[in-house]
């Protein structure tokens, strides 16, 4: 009897809350309530009613923020992926010895028991298609294709000997983002939002921005695998609705939509009272979030309102799908508490088989389109005091050969085949040792000779900076605990501040 009374009391308190919240919604002139039902229920400091144990933050809102298990260095991540694998030999890994071998046949010892995607027979070597200089106080090397990068070179820690065992785009991208070269595992952004939730209820917690096309591995690289699908990346698009179905239908004003929503939630609450299923409360909450997202997402996606100086700094191209725009959007999003912003820029597969993918043509266009916005992103985050709480990661899915690709037995424009043994990535931001260089490749940039790090090491390091121990951050599926780094991975302490 006593128990029943208590339950009834709880029932009433939820109802009272609901009514007061409705009142709040109705009085709110800025659209629907600024607080989610979950947040409201739990943030009430005065006269806090008892919340039944089965209603948790996470049951009302699967994106509710959770504290990191260890002290985090950063709150959010911006991951810049150059899809197709940019050539380390034309950007950061300076190899004067390779220039001497230019257009000479490749020594057979380099081809022994090696498998290539396209190289057939004995290719020639290809010298660096760039000039290099030491820049910044760190004196680190950078190529002439990245003039703006000089400004931020001292913010960056280089990994010069990253390696992967995958040399086809799709599987290599999957490995980079899900820890496995085969489809089915959650992506890193999904892991992170599952573990930490999002600080902003009105925006997706894990946003994906693309320019030039989608990655070869498709949406799996931001998929949620066996985690609940709510944690998959939300692809915010530059054309059409930024988030699918975001726009109200024609003829339905915001005001009218609000009334529709009130009616839906009103009836749903009655349904809750009738059937007692807490899932209905979750639905009410989700509908409110959807309503708020309808205004907050277009707002955050709108770069027109940014000051001219900022637009100039990034080199944005309003109305187009451009990497520069995406960099600016990434800044706006982390500023508003989005947890993980993933950028994919397509078109770095510099085989040389056609001008669009040649190192003396298409590749230069890609450098130009990304150099300025990347520098701007870091400087902009810095001037806003956000760089210390954001991690920026730059890289591709693998590297490129010091050999000149000879697809179908023919040497075309300067281009390089896929290579997994050594490539460059860099990180900047919170917790990163500024100006550090870790890892070294051989004289021609073919293999790592010092400080080799794996894809799982990269992932372990990102998770570490977010406050996770990658071996302990697991999810049980099919009777066993899975983790992003599968069965390996070490935090790369050499680049940590």
């Amino acid at each position, binding site marked *: 009897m006593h128990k029943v009374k208590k339950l009834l009391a709880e029932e009433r308190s939820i109802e009272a809350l609901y009514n007061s919240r409705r009142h709040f919604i109705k009085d709110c002139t800025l659209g629907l309530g600024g607080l989610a039902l979950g947040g409201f229920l739990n943030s009430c400091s005065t006269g806090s009613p008892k919340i039944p144990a089965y209603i948790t933050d996470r049951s009302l809102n699967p994106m509710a923020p959770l504290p990191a298990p260890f002290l985090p260095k950063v709150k959010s991540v911006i991951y810049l992926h150059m899809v197709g694998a940019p050539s380390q030999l034309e950007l950061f890994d300076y190899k004067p010895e390779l220039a001497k071998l230019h257009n000479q046949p490749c020594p057979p010892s380099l081809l022994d028991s090696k498998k290539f995607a396209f190289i*057939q027979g004995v290719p020639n070597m290809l010298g660096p298609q760039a000039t290099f200089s030491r820049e910044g106080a760190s004196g680190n090397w950078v190529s002439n294709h990245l003039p703006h990068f000089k400004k931020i070179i001292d913010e960056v820690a280089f990994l010069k000997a990253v390696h992967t065992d995958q040399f086809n785009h799709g599987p290599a991208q999957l490995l980079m983002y899900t820890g496995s070269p085969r489809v089915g595992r959650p992506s890193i952004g999904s892991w992170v939002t599952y573990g930490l939730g999002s600080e902003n209820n009105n925006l997706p917690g894990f946003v994906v921005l693309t320019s030039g096309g*989608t990655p070869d591995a498709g949406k*799996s690289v931001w998929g949620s695998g066996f985690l609940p699908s709510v944690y998959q990346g939300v692809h915010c698009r530059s*054309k059409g609705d930024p988030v699918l179905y975001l726009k109200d239908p024609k*003829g*339905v004003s915001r005001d009218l939509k609000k009334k*529709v929503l009130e009616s839906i939630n009103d009836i749903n609450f009655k349904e809750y009272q009738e059937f007692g299923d807490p899932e209905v409360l979750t639905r009410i909450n989700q509908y409110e979030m959807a309503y708020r*997202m309808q205004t907050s997402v277009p707002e955050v996606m709108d770069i027109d309102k940014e000051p001219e100086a900022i637009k100039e700094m990034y080199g944005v191209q309003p109305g187009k799908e451009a990497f520069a725009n995406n960099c600016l959007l990434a800044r706006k999003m982390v500023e508003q508490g989005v947890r993980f912003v993933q950028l994919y820029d397509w078109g770095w597969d510099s085989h040389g088989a056609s001008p669009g993918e040649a190192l003396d043509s298409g590749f230069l266009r890609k450098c130009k389109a990304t150099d300025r916005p990347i520098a701007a992103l870091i400087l902009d985050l810095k001037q806003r005091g956000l760089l210390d709480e954001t991690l920026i990661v730059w890289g591709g899915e693998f590297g490129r050969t010091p050999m000149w690709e000879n697809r179908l037995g023919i040497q075309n424009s300067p281009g390089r085949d896929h290579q997994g043994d050594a490539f460059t990535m860099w990180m900047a931001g919170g917790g990163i040792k500024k100006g550090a260089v870790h890892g070294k490749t051989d004289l021609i940039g073919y293999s790592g000779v010092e400080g080799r790090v794996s894809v799982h090491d990269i992932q372990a390091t990102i998770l570490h900076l977010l406050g996770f121990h990658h071996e302990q951050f697991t999810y049980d599926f099919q*009777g066993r605990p899975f983790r992003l780094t599968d069965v390996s991975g070490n935090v790369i302490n050499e680049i940590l501040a």
Partner: protein
Amino acid sequence: MRKEVKILTGLGGILTFGIILFYILKTNPKVDFSSEVKPILNKHCISCHGGVKKNAGFSVLFESEAKGITQSEKPAIIPFNASQSELIKRLHHSDPEMRMPYQKPALSEEEIKTLTQWIDQGADWGTHWAYLPVEKTPPPTVASVYREKKFLSSPLDHFIAARMEEKELLPNQEAPKNIIARRLAFDITGLPPNPDLYNAFATGRISYENYVDSLFIESSYGEKWASWWLDLARYADTMGFEKDPGRTIWQYRDWVIKAFNRDLPYDQFTIEQLAGDLLPNPSVEQLIATAFHRNTMNNDEGGTDDEEFRVAAVIDRVNTTFDVWQSTTMSCVQCHSHPYDPFRHKEYYQLMAFFNNTRDEDITDDTPNLMNHSAKDRQKIEGILDWVSTHSDTSTHKYFKDFILFKEPKYPSHHFEVIKNGFVSGPTMGLRKGGAAFMKNVKSLGRQKLYLKLVGHTNRSTLVFRKDSLNGKILGTFKISKQGKNFYKDRQGQFITHIDFSREEDPFDLYVELETQDLETKKEHFKLHWFAFLPDLPGKGMPGYADVNKSLVEVLDVKGDLTPIMVENPDHMKRQTHVFNRGNWRVKEEEVQTGVPQILNAWDQQLEKNRLGFAKWLVDQENPLTARTLVNRVWYQIFGKGLVSTVEDMGTMADPPSHPALLDWLSYELMHSMNWSLKTLIKTILMSSTYRQSSYTSREKLAVDPNNIFYSRAPRLRLTAEEIRDQALFVSGLLSDKMYGPGVMPPQPDGIWEHAYLGNLWKTSKGEDKYRRGIYTYLKRTSPYPSLMAFDAGSREVCLVRRSPTNTPLQALVTMNDPVYLEAAMQFAKTHRNKEAKVAISDMYQKATLRVPEEDKLKSLLTLYEEAKKTFEEDPQQLDDFFGLQQIIDINTASLALIANAIMNLDEFLTHA
């Protein structure tokens, strides 16, 4: 005297021992290995002493290892002697370097006590429940209160009531007719009931059972349940990697729908999908069934190693087979023995040997493909095959039949190696001026017709085939002609032709050289896809031979829909299977033969040692997992959770069954009295009182049993992605009942399918194809239909055992704003617009939910209607292109459409109560 003493002492000893034993047994009830010991070992020990690592030479995975000699040359477990057993000593050890688990928290006293007692009692090993045979299980007797409550309408209810009784729970009342009618219709057909049938049931004209039976004979039953199976089968309309090109495999989807509708028994359903091609003289339908395992991804990204992705596909088949039929995570065993369950590393590869002998080799055109011949061609084929039968033996008949239907066995071009001036690229080999290539170890078995599939780019060149070297004996020559289209322009645009070939009984290396008058050096003269050998048509010289031969040439080069199927290698092309070192396919270890895991049912020596035998082994009544898995999964479809809650896994890490006896009762009956009939199984569940309860959730029950493990109420489940879409179209009257055929492309936002270099390929369907059931929606793996994805449908790249239902803002955006739902809302409104507003709203609500709206709900909607109306009256411009439907809409209809849109977003519409 001394002897007597000895005997007495001996007797005394035995007696004492007996007393002690009695004492032990009496005070310490026997510790159960599976339920008490194994969980402790799994939790604390097995990650270092199991299938992955075997530190200090000690493992607790298998009994022989656990009790065997370790690196210290002693066993760690000495039965009946815990105090001398190293395992126990180490748990107590004071030196932290010695104390186990190493560098982890110590075991609790309770846990140590359990292990100690277990060893003292003899350390009997046990078998995990799921690996024990399914036994006949009588329903338990339960308290009379359940009978009084009329809860015991099926033996099933006895099992449920027995567990409720333990928890002092009482069942809910039976759900009202409208609620149960909608629930049944969704669970059987995935749609709301058709109005006539519903009325017949609601007014009592037909019984509950008649209503259920009527739903089962609807063909929508097959469509509903096929959605579930297609998740397991990872069915999709594209190949999956990179460009993710299309694949025509929809005939498999249609096969599944038809199989469910004709209630093909699950054992046969299994055999046909896993090994239909190996059945004696298989029908076309049985060949299509084997496409189950051709749903694996195919990688045609440039520069990929076909063998690597063929291996990946074979591995996926092993893993999927065990995911689908055995609730066993065999994927764990690729690299090492299973971390927790008793499966050995080698056993994985013995299983793989069953699947490793098919003709598919990750070739871009998905070959082998079954040609969907026209009726006319089928007649021709019958004529040819009759002729072959008359003039030859059965093996020749099979050879011709296989080659006509699916062009196997053949040698695909990717096995060529270029000697000079040529290339092997994707599915083709091509040569330039002076070019040459070879393929090793070709077997023509004396057959003298060489078939080629190619595209020719010149009329001035000849291909010369030689034996064993570029100077070897000429085996045949082929004059190239300008004919056919490149593969990437037209999948079937190449042509098939044949030449005479030298009679070669022994294997040879085939050398090909291009001879040409052309001076151009960079031009490729042809692209060859494959070659194959065929015997001469038998019956040469008999009347009619010429006609039959002509038909043969014709049917071999017809174009049409292709379905990838499984085809076994003939003996002369058989593959070997090796253990892969740590799962790495490039590092092969010992060769293995086909075999099944020791822990499961024994292999009957009568069985064929191939996929067919394997499939029969899988559906043998002795197999402990097949029936249990199916029962658990079907239960999950109906109740939203499994009797074993980890529906993917029944291994030792799985949650124990909530109702073990019920699981076994259903599994046993499924195999024996139900003869593997899925309809009977589903019906048995739907006829139970357990199912028929109301889903009302009282606070008390929520407190006692928040997750409804004891089924004292019915679940309230959100509809599936397909059901939500289909229902919106159904209630608005838009839903097409057209069945089967290629995937359709209902409207989706622009730019979803934009590929970096292939452009937007989504061509919105026209006419009724826009309104087909969700199961017919074209599924592109890298870019699945977004509104279905929002509601947790899978992208079908790999086997999906369960969709985890989520509740997100993106779902709200779909049902509120997706033009598909707006059109449905408008159509729904139009069918009610001639009524008075309140009646119209009430009718729409009823049509949508089968419930009469309570007054306050109706009032809420009516208020919304009035407000909408007012808004539109004040600002009629809002109605220009209302909902973006390019129609002229009046104020009343627009306002009703808004109500319809609201109704389609109600929780009671999106769930079934």
